[in-house]
C-alpha cells in the first residue's frame, strides 16, 4: 500500500547551521534506508511556509493570497511517499523520520485507483 508521510514542524524554529547540517545528514541516511528497502516512492522538503501562496476560486473568480490559510504553529515542511506492506510498517517508517522527534508525522493512505 502507498502512504504519504506528511512532516509537520514548528515554523518559528530557527536551527543553527550545525543543527541544520546534522539534520540533513539524518534525512539522507533515512532516505537511503527506504531506497535500499525498495519502499521509497518520492520525497521532498518544502520551502518555508512564509514563501507559500494560497489560491482559491470562488464563483469563477481566482483569489490569490500570500501565505497559508490559517495561522498554526505546526506547518507542513516536507513529505515522503512510501510503498509498504501495511499501516504497521508505514508507522514504523514514519517513526524513523528525523522530523518525528521534534514535530509530528501524519500518515495517510493514498487512494488506489489502479486496482480496478
Amino acid at each position, binding site marked *: 500500500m502507498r*502512504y504519504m508521510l506528511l512532516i509537520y514542524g514548528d515554523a518559528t524554529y530557527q536551527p543553527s547551521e550545525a543543527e541544520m547540517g546534522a539534520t540533513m545528514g539524518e534525512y539522507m541516511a533515512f532516505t537511503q534506508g527506504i531506497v535500499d528497502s525498495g519502499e521509497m516512492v518520492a520525497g521532498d522538503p518544502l520551502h518555508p511556509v512564509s514563501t507559500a501562496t494560497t489560491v482559491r476560486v470562488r464563483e469563477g473568480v481566482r483569489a490569490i493570497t500570500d501565505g497559508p490559510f490559517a495561522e498554526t504553529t505546526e506547518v507542513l515542511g516536507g513529505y515522503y511517499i512510501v510503498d509498504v*506492506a501495511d*499501516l*504497521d510498517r508505514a508507522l514504523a517508517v514514519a517513526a524513523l523520520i528525523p522530523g518525528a522527534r521534534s514535530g509530528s508525522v501524519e*500518515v495517510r*493512505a493514498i487512494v488506489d485507483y489502479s*486496482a*480496478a
Partner: protein
Amino acid sequence: MEEIERSALAKILRESVGPALGTLTRVLRDFDLAEESLQEAAVLAMQRWPTDGNPDQPVAWLVTAARRRALDRLRREGKRRLKQQSAWRRDTALDASVDPAEIYDDSLDVVVDDDQLTLLLMCCHPALNTEAQIALTLRSVAGLSTGEIARAFLVDDPAMGQRLVRAKRKIRVAGIPFTRPSAADLGDRLDIVCSVIYLVFNEGYSSSGRSLMRVDLCAEAIRLGGVLHRLVPDDPEVAGLLALMLLHDARRLARLSTDGELVLMDDQDRSLWDRDRIAQGERILHEAMSQRAPGPYQIQAAIAALHSTAASADDTDWSQIASLYGVLRQVVASPVVELNRAVAVAMADGAGAGLTLIEGLIERGQLLDSHLLHSAHADLLRRMGHWAAAHDAYERALELVRTEPERRFLRARLQAMPT
C-alpha cells in the same frame, strides 16, 4: 423450555462468533467480508441448530458456512468486489479470473486461538481511538450486537452503528493489518488490549445497578480477560488484569444496598462476597506473581486480594496495602494512586498521617476537581474532629459528585456531623 434452549443457543453462538471471525478474517484476508458472511452464517445457525441439534464444533461450523457464503459472493461479485477491497487483500489474493476457492482452500486449517488473538490486537490497534477500540472489541470479539453496545454506553443505536462503521472503514482504508505485531511491539500492544478490557469492566462496575436492561459489561470484560489470559498465559500483567477484575467483581453484590444505596467497603456485608470468585482471582494472581515481573494490574490485584481476604475493615492489613500503593506509585505516577495511598496510610498510621498526604495533593493542585479527593479529605478531617473544615470539604465534594448514590451518601455523612 423453548426459551431456555433459545438462550443457550444464543450463548453458544455469541461465544463462537469471536473465534470464528478471527479465523475467517485470516482466511479471507478481508475483515468486512468476514463479518458480513459470518452474520449470514449466524442467521443460518439460528434456523438450523434448533432442528438439527447444536454442532459439536460450533466455531468450525460457522467458519465453514461463512466461508462458503463468502466464496459465493466473491464469485458473484468478482472484480467489482475486489475493487473495493484493501490493497492488503488484493496483494495477497488478487485475480478475479481464478476461482476464489482455489486461493483459500489450503489455508483453512483452523488455528482459532491464534486468529482470535490477532483479531483482538487488530480491534485494539493504536491507530484507532479508544472508543472505537472498545466498540470493535465488544462487537467483533465478544460478539455483542450494536444495540447492546449502544445501550451499555448510553449512546443511541445509530450513533454506535456509525462509530463501528467509521472504525471498520479506518481498518480497511488505512491498511491496519490482520497480522501479529513484531515480538518487540507485542508488549505495548497487549497493554492496549488490557486497558480496553479494563475500561469495559470499569464502565460496567460504575454503572452496576443502574439498569437491568443493560448488558453486563463486567461479565463481558471478565470473559474477554479470560480469553486473553488463555491466549497469552505467560503474560503476568494479563493474568493480573483478570485477577483484578475477578476480585472486584466478587464484591459487587455487597456494593449496593437493597434500596440502591452505595455501601462503602468498610460497611459491606462480607458474607455477600463471592468466595469462589475471590479464590479464583487469588489463584490466578499467585501464579502471575510467581514470575516476579510486577506491573500495575498485579499490584492492584494484590491490593484487592488483601481487602477480599480480610474478615473486617479493622482486620485489613492496611500497612501492607499502603506500601503496595507506594510500589504502584513508582510504576504509575498518578494522583489517584496517591489519594488511595493516603486513605490506606490513614488507616494504618492514623488520620493525621493520611491528612498530610492529601494536603500535599491539594498544595500541588492535583485532583481538585475530583469529588473523591474532597470526600476523602472531609472524612479524615471528620475523624480528627475538625468539624468546620470537614463541613467545607463535604460541601466541595457535593458540588463535584456526579452519581446519585454517592451524592446521597455524602449528604448523609454531612448531616450526621455535629455542627
